[in-house]
């Protein structure tokens, strides 16, 4: 018997998720990502370790954090309380978080044993059953915690819970191979097809990503949906979509989700004390997105805007 109860580093669990896979789902966000996409909506997922954030509107000004921090990393002059140059989180006692009664300083990322996560997941089992739903593992990049992921998926399979994984594809092939029997559906991101551009905007080339995708198909894993974030001036052009359609046709992949970029993450960057480079880029026009959709449909693909 497998007695292991591995821990995952989780930064959010959302119940009643209705945009990330079939039916009603629970979304589990794993921390850590090899990519640094400039448009990333979950910057709190990047690091493999815990982060802290500051929520100004929750602060009641009790100043308990000021005396609690043993690294002198709290400042009360600026809008943000955390001096990121001095802060050593998570390599400290996390006393600022512990002493913040108002939860204005919060820890992002919690080590959770598989059983604990499963208990939360199972609370909505009847909703999955009645709607054809299940869990979706997102991130971050789920493959960044490969052992946990493999074990967790195995346990979900044992419980007959439908599992979707959202991946950027940038992971060792071995990891894919190991989990495939326990995954029902892969949401596979393709951001750019030009490798140099890919490196410029995400920090890595797309070689591994494309090679993994081909291997998946070669291994007859067909339950793949391609997901594309559309970001204006980066990939919102017909050239990209026409190449992507070609690739999908070659690989006999049928479904694609287009996720229009939005600015909702701006505040997150602020709270993490991070710089948000895409602050002022325009949003891609709806009309243009419709054009891409029609084009992809004309190539025989199933297209959804905003996932599903």
């Amino acid at each position: 018997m497998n007695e292991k109860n591995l821990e995952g580093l989780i930064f959010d669990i959302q119940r009643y998720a209705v945009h990330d896979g079939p039916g009603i789902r629970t979304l589990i966000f794993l921390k850590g990502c090899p990519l640094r996409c400039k448009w990333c909506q979950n910057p709190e997922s990047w690091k493999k370790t815990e982060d802290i954030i500051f929520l100004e509107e929750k602060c009641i000004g009790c100043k308990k954090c000021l005396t609690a921090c043993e690294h002198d990393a709290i400042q009360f002059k600026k809008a943000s309380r955390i001096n990121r140059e001095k802060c050593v989180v998570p390599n400290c006692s996390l006393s600022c978080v512990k002493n913040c009664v108002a939860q204005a300083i919060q820890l992002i990322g919690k080590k959770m044993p598989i059983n604990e996560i499963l208990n939360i997941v199972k609370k909505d089992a009847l909703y999955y059953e009645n709607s054809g739903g299940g869990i979706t593992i997102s991130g971050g990049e789920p493959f960044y915690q490969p052992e946990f992921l493999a074990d967790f998926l195995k346990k979900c399979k044992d419980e007959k819970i439908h599992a979707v994984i959202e991946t950027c594809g940038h992971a060792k092939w071995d990891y894919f191979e190991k989990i495939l029997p326990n995954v029902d559906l892969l949401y596979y991101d393709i951001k750019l097809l030009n490798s140099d551009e890919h490196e410029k905007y995400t920090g890595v080339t797309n070689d591994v990503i494309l090679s993994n995708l081909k291997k998946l198909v070669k291994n007859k894993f067909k339950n793949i949906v391609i997901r594309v974030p559309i970001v204006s001036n980066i990939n919102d052009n017909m050239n990209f979509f026409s190449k992507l359609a070609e690739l999908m046709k070659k690989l006999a992949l049928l479904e694609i989700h287009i996720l229009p970029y939005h600015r909702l993450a701006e505040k997150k960057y602020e709270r993490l004390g991070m710089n948000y480079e895409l602050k002022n880029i325009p949003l891609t026009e709806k009309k243009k997105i419709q054009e891409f959709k029609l084009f992809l449909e004309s190539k025989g693909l199933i297209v959804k805007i905003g996932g599903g």
Partner: protein
Amino acid sequence: MVLEQIPQPNYKKCTQLMKKKVINHPHEICIERAKFFTESYKKTKGENPIIRFAKAMEDLLTNMTIVIWDNEFIVGNRSTKYMGTPLYPEVRIDTIEQDCDSYDSREVQKLFLSNEERDYIKKELIPYWKNEDQTVQARFQSYLKPDIKNMMEKLVFLVDVELVNGVGHFLIGHENVFKYGIKGLIQKAEKRLKNFSLEDTEKRVFLQSVIILCTAVKNFIQRFSLLAEGEAKNEPNIDRKKELIEISEICRNISENLPTSFKEAIQLIYFNQLICGLEDGGFAVSIGRLDQYLYPYYLKDKSEGKISDEEVQFLIECFYIKLTMLWNYVISKGIIAAEGPPLSENLTIGGLDRKGNDATTELSHIMLDAYTHLKTVQPTFSVRIHEKTPEDFIVKVGESIKSGSSIALFNDDIMVKSLEDLGFTLEDAREYAPIGCVEPQHPYKSYGSTNANQLNLVKCLELALTNGIDMFTRVDYGVKYDKEIASYEDLWEAYINQMKYFIKYMVLTMDTLDTAIAELTPQPFLSATTDNCIENGLDVTKGGAIYNFTGAQLLGLATVADSLAVIKQMVFEEKLLPFEDLVQMLMKNFRGSYQGKKGSEWRQIFINNVPKYGNDDDYVDSIAVDVVKAYCTEILKHKNNRGGQFNPGILSTTFHLAFGVFTAASANGRKSRDTLSNGLGPTNGMDKNGPTAVLNSVKKLDHLLISNGSSLILAFHPNSLIIDKFPALIRTFFNYNGGFQVQFNIVGKEILLEAQKNPDEYRDLVVRVAGYSVLFTELSKVAQEDIINRTEC
């Protein structure tokens, strides 16, 4: 001219215009009812009060101005003004006196009237009824024993709903009117009258009141027939002339006989609603299962080719608009707590039939389509759902909700069992319909006064903490607990003692009021439509119906459960704070310092470190289960003076706001004077795990015990209500011993704008956008604008 080219009348456009007129028309006070009542009461001084009431109704129905408004097909007016509302001085005159100078100048819900009308109110109406000891309010006050009166004035409980303009909160026995016809009801009463000897004065008086009133109703409807006939003669437009002749024929027939067509049936239902609303000025004069009542007429007319689905939908839309024209004014003092001017005429579609089969029909679909199209504020629209409800019907309901319709869904599988436990036969239980907001009763066998009482449980907990002293007024009036509170179990016992104590006084107060009502303001017409009243010779207000209840609502469920959880964990388990310190802190509304921390810091700890109801956490949900069970079982022990029992419900209307104003701070972090929690819902902003977690928490409660119904409102952004996932959401909540009722607040642009202005009120608002979810209020202004802009599409 080629005839075929004349377009068919555009029904949909037509009803939209009618709706617009109704919505934009200012509200007015109509004094005709009060005038005829006053004149009549002057004439009948000294006679039996029941007969006086019936004669006043007779004078009113015989003499009031009747109107057929432009282009309307369903006719009947309760007021002489287009959007007018009558006055009910026989119930109480004090509120008319308090308000009459400010009707047209108050800030919200303005009511217009002419100077002559105001003069009449001041010079005739008020002096007469003030000297008349026979208003319900005056008699109630005179009957109240000093100790009961003293306790009532503490406002821990309320009995005022029955005293607004009348009792309200009933279903009219439309099917009995269809079965007997008005003439048949008169004959039934006449026949029964012969069976009672002269000594049975009370019964004879009742039956005489029925005969007087039903005869007046017959004549009233005939007046409409004559009016329509007269107007037809002068009508130049040929189409309208034909319509008026048809109206005249319809009214002539249904004034006495059984309805023979869909048009006659729906017109008769409207008259029933109107008459009951003249007889009693209370809220929630409910319709019940309209799709069931009308289905035989629909089938017959359809098979004879007399009517098309399009015409049926048109008539139903006209009916909804006419329902919207029946509304009640709210007294100035009550604006915060009242249900608002709409009457809460609850209309139900779908559900089971008497035999347990699915009763959803094509007519249910048409009624839903009509409501989706019009979205009028009336009727209050209810859909009954059970295991066998067709999927396409639930999908259509979901689409309607997503389009912005305000629809409540009811779970037959729970309520039928619950009503059986209450004493209904299985067949009767299957025929239930909600009254007002959510309160189930039988359409023609019940008198439920379903929103009679409200009990502030948060105040009961407050008094338990102080051993009987009101933290707000510092007055000592609660029941004493002779032990020191040293454990959670002690606190629970002290709380239960307070709860039982105030329930006892609530029941005594209610009995006194119900006695006054039964003596002075009977409901002969409603009684005639209700099974067994004529047979027993008893008015509904005296217990004539088969099923008799008094609704008693629990207020503040989540506030109490969350507060108890905080005290349990912080004071008795983790021992972070002495009990006395907690009490002091609440008395001081979180000011001061305790154990080295400020009250404001403790408040944050209470909010953030203890589980809250609505998050699917057993620690606190189990307390909510206990609170509900203790309340319901206690309420069910009490009998009312109509031979029935008190019936527990968990719905707030808006009493959670009113009660909040004089309730001190609570241990869940609620500040003094803030609102209490609403119905079955979590404390505002405290449900952090989405709708399935809320539903799971709610499902843990014993819904079979909450037999007067419960109300749960879920707020959704339109993006999060996915139609093909909607049936699964509903079925999972309803099945497996699920909840009784759920309704949705689909958050549109206005709410989002409101949430921007008052973020504290909308902390729980989740906006989900393709793989990414956020709490709306935690977003930057720019991001919020982004979402608001998307909401348009």
